[in-house]
């Protein structure tokens, strides 16, 4: 079982820490008066959160406009075509997550959405990964 590595040791030998995570999958680092943190392989978290926090959408069309409502954040994207509506929704998702990190995480009607927020955070700035997180093909039909 992995011991909690002191912060100063992790800082001095971060390359070794990285190697350990790649090999063992996890390394816990602790600093005085702070909560310990865990460094883990990103894909493990991506898979875990994907199972626990699936996104739900509702796509409709009216007057030449496509609308996509995202239940999990109560936001929507709109456009004159499906790709445009998806692009607008991804913009809104990124905006929501930025707002969540700054303020919404403290609000009672947003705090419990952290699982879906983590999924977007784990995608970084990669819009294709965000799209795949929101509209995932079945596991046996993934292109990569």
């Amino acid at each position: 079982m992995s011991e909690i590595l002191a912060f100063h040791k992790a800082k001095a030998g971060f390359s070794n820490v990285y190697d350990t995570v790649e090999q063992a999958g996890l390394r816990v680092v602790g600093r005085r008066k702070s909560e310990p943190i865990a460094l883990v392989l990103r894909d493990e978290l991506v898979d875990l959160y994907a199972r626990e926090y699936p996104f739900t959408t509702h796509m409709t069309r009216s007057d030449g406009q496509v609308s996509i409502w995202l239940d999990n954040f109560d936001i929507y994207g709109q456009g004159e075509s499906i790709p445009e509506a998806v692009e607008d929704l991804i913009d809104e998702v990124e905006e929501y997550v930025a707002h969540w990190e700054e303020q919404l995480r403290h609000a009672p009607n947003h705090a419990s959405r952290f699982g879906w927020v983590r999924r977007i955070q784990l995608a970084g700035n990669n819009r294709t990964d965000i799209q795949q997180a929101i509209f995932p093909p079945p596991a046996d039909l993934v292109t990569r």
Partner: protein
Amino acid sequence: MRHPTWDDIRRFCEVDDWTPTHLKRGRKRRDHDRFQKTLADGRILRTRASHGRAEIGDPALVTRILRHQLEVTVEEFWDAVDNGNPPVRPSKTATTPEEAAPAHRLEDWLAVQLAITVGLSDTEIGALTQESGMEAWTEWLERHRQGEEG
């Protein structure tokens, strides 16, 4: 149901004392006004209104905006817009989403893959069933894999 315009959303936010906000990420999209309101219990509501003055149109989207973003009934919304009376929260009645034409007959993930990855038009996607959409998707995957192997 009477269809609100984006100006009606702005008028509601003004009457209900919402605060205009700015983009958190400073991204390129500035074609919407954004508002938020912090309720007495600490909950934060947020919404946006397109700069256009057109009707929002999609009845399902309208009812979701009212129910989930503004947290008001249809009657409370129009009483605020028409008469300047802000709603009293919590709202008494939930607004049930109205029926709207689905954008397609497929699962949303499949419509998005066919539109963005395969490049089908919305018209072509609208003509597909879930079954024929899956056939189009798996055929594209097969061609894609053969292309990678070749």
